[in-house]
């Protein structure tokens, strides 16, 4: 242990602890702008400077480990003046149109300006205005608000290994942009939105669809259906000041109904359906021994990543669509048919913890119903804004169930939102499909949690199935490299089934979550999903009565011809230059 003092308070810290964290533990929060608990400190902003007795100059607290006998001061007049000037200089090159900014009230720069006491603009706005990048269907990038902290690059390059963004030019002309300055929509960006949730200011945000959804809700000729992803029920409460991870399934249904949706349905329903289709696919592959391991396909960020960097693995991908797109295909066919509604009048909206879902729903192949299967995707943040606009507070809502016939769900569906959840849900049902018996203990703990790559060996009545779970594209890249290596060298991989989610933590850590997130919050949300799973009477997808009715009345059986047409898809090779589909050679 290292002994030091911070503002005359004696502290002990483990070797290597930064002054920033040691000070926080001692009760002194040093302001910072570029530092993020989940990322390596980069020391770009310089706001966290401190004085250390006997060491000349100011030191950045995030980058400086506590040394033996250090006497640190965190807010001397010199430090406070320096911080104030640094913030003023950042503001001199930042659009301060806070009232109309998507980040208003959630902006770390806004909070910082208030903390360090900025009350005048000493520097006028300098630099020319740059065009806003609207080329992506998921993410908008406004370089006029960018403060060059580099968090987006760190998460894109180091965590996701996508490398869509980089620092370009230098000095006053420095900008963060994509290769060839082509814009996110013409780059390798996978739309995961991790840059969005790590941006401290309003330089990166989702491409909003709230106006279009309001219009549909107010159009008496339209029948607007809504589905909500598993992870949204443990995020939406945060939009209304509830503790992180509050489970609000019933309140969410109630608020959506009051917002004016004609039918409040569930992505969880089609999560159960995904298990039926993907589980059947798994059994087929295990029986034939072909194209193992089977790899899950629910995460649209992961899909684009795979299409760009691992398209050799396309034959291994599950052809099952994501729950969002299965729902879309059924809403305008089965649902319309049973309810006697003209599918042309149905507007299909989904509430997602995800920005990549906005990309997924506009993929040209996602028109199985004869219409665009999902019309609009709203992130948790966007639906939070709409509810506030309508004067609805999720905290105050009663608990209401979803509507039939695409509303029932089991515990297996709800855990889709956490990393490892799809795997666990699939095993619960695969066991039944193979053995005809029910898995007694449905909780498969080794695939839960936030470790990088999780592995487990599952005994399905004598058949041993080795599975792996990766969350974040960086981990997926590691795992897939290993699998490819095994296939090349030994002819087969040690794994039979792999789950990949593009975002760290799974969907509870998606690019559409509430602002100001970190891994601890992602973990809390995941735990809440497991709590809901435990609380539900049915915990296996194949027990969902509405899913069984769907097969009986409409789809016949899993992987039937009709199921294939509506619920399965195919993948493309994409260019590493612009992320576009490569013409078949």
């Amino acid at each position, binding site marked *: 242990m290292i002994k030091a003092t911070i503002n005359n308070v004696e502290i002990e810290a483990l070797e290597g602890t930064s002054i920033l964290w040691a000070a926080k533990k001692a009760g002194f929060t040093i302001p910072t702008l570029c530092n993020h608990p989940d990322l390596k400190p980069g020391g770009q902003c310089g706001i966290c400077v401190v004085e250390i007795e006997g060491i000349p100059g100011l030191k950045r607290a995030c980058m400086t480990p506590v040394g033996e006998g250090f006497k640190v001061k965190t807010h001397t007049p010199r430090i406070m003046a320096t911080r104030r000037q640094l913030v003023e200089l950042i503001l001199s090159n930042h659009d301060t149109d806070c009232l109309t900014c998507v980040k208003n009230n959630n902006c770390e720069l806004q909070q910082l300006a208030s903390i360090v006491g900025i009350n005048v603009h000493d520097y006028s706005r300098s630099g020319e205005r740059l065009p806003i990048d609207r080329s992506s269907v998921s993410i908008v990038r406004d370089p006029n608000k960018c403060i060059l902290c580099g968090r987006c690059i760190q998460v894109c*390059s180091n965590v996701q290994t996508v*490398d*869509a*963004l*980089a*620092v*370009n*030019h*230098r000095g006053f002309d420095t900008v963060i942009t*994509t*290769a*060839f*300055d082509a814009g996110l929509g013409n*780059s*390798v960006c996978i739309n995961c939105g991790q840059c969005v949730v790590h941006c401290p200011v309003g330089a990166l945000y989702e491409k909003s669809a709230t106006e279009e959804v309001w219009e549909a809700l107010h159009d008496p000729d339209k029948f607007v259906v809504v589905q909500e992803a598993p992870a949204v029920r443990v995020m939406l409460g945060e939009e209304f000041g509830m503790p992180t991870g509050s489970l609000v399934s019933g309140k969410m249904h109630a608020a959506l109904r009051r917002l004016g949706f004609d039918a409040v349905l569930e992505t969880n329903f089609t999560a159960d359906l995904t298990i039926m289709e993907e589980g059947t696919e798994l059994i087929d592959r295990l029986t034939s021994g072909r194209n193992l391991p089977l790899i899950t396909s629910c995460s649209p960020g992961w899909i684009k990543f795979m299409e760009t960097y691992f398209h050799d693995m396309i034959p291994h991908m599950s052809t099952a669509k994501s729950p969002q797109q299965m729902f879309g295909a059924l809403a305008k066919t089965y649902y319309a048919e049973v309810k006697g509604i003209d599918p042309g009048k149905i507007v299909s909206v989904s509430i997602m913890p995800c920005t990549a879902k906005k990309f997924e729903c506009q993929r040209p192949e996602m028109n199985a119903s004869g219409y665009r299967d999902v019309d609009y995707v709203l992130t948790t943040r966007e639906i939070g804004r709409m509810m506030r606009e309508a004067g609805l507070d999720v905290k105050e809502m009663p608990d209401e169930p979803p509507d039939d016939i695409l509303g029932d769900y089991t515990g297996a569906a709800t855990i889709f939102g956490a990393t490892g959840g799809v795997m666990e849900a699939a095993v619960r049902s695969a066991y039944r499909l193979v053995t005809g018996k029910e898995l007694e203990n449905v909780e498969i703990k080794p695939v839960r949690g936030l470790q990088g790559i999780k592995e487990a060996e599952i005994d399905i009545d004598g058949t041993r199935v080795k599975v792996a779970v990766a969350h974040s594209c960086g981990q997926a890249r590691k795992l897939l490299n290993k699998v490819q290596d095994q296939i090349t060298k030994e002819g087969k991989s040690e794994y039979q089934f792999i789950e990949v989610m593009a975002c760290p933590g799974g969907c509870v850590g998606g690019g559409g979550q509430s602002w100001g997130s970190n891994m601890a919050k992602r973990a809390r949300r995941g735990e809440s999903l497991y709590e809901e799973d435990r609380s539900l009477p049915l915990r296996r997808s194949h027990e969902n009565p509405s899913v069984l009715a769907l097969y009986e009345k409409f789809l016949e059986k899993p992987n039937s011809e009709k199921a294939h047409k509506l619920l399965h898809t195919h993948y493309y090779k994409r260019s*590493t*230059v612009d992320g576009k589909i490569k013409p078949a050679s």
Partner: protein
Amino acid sequence: MNREAILKKFEPNLSNILYIMHDLQDNNPERYLAKEDIEACGDYLNVPYSYVHSVASFYTMFSLKPRGRNIIRLCESPPCHLMGADSLIDYLKGSLKVDIGGTTKDGMFTLELTSCLGVCGVAPAMMLNEEMFGNLTPEKVDSILDKRRKEI
């Protein structure tokens, strides 16, 4: 020389990125790093294109836009400035009918500014491609550029 031949002159180590980019740029008839050059460099070194683009945009010696066959780099550091570089800039802009960074209509010259060339003893100075010229006057600049026109 084609791109492949240029790349093969170097080991595929990231430490060679600047040499490779210089060679690619010099061999591009429009004296810049085209999209294809950046792609070739990224593929060869196994680094993302965003990274190669970032490096290319950082150094003023690389251009991401097509340029003329000859690059004029006029020094704008204080000694040259004091010795009349400013009026030379105006003179060149007028006689070539271009702005800073622009290329003449015939594609012969691109006019650029540079930081200190290290020949302050003969200020004001400029480089024409790889060659250094000092003690410049409008007349001297004219004769240098005329000579270059005739050489081509």
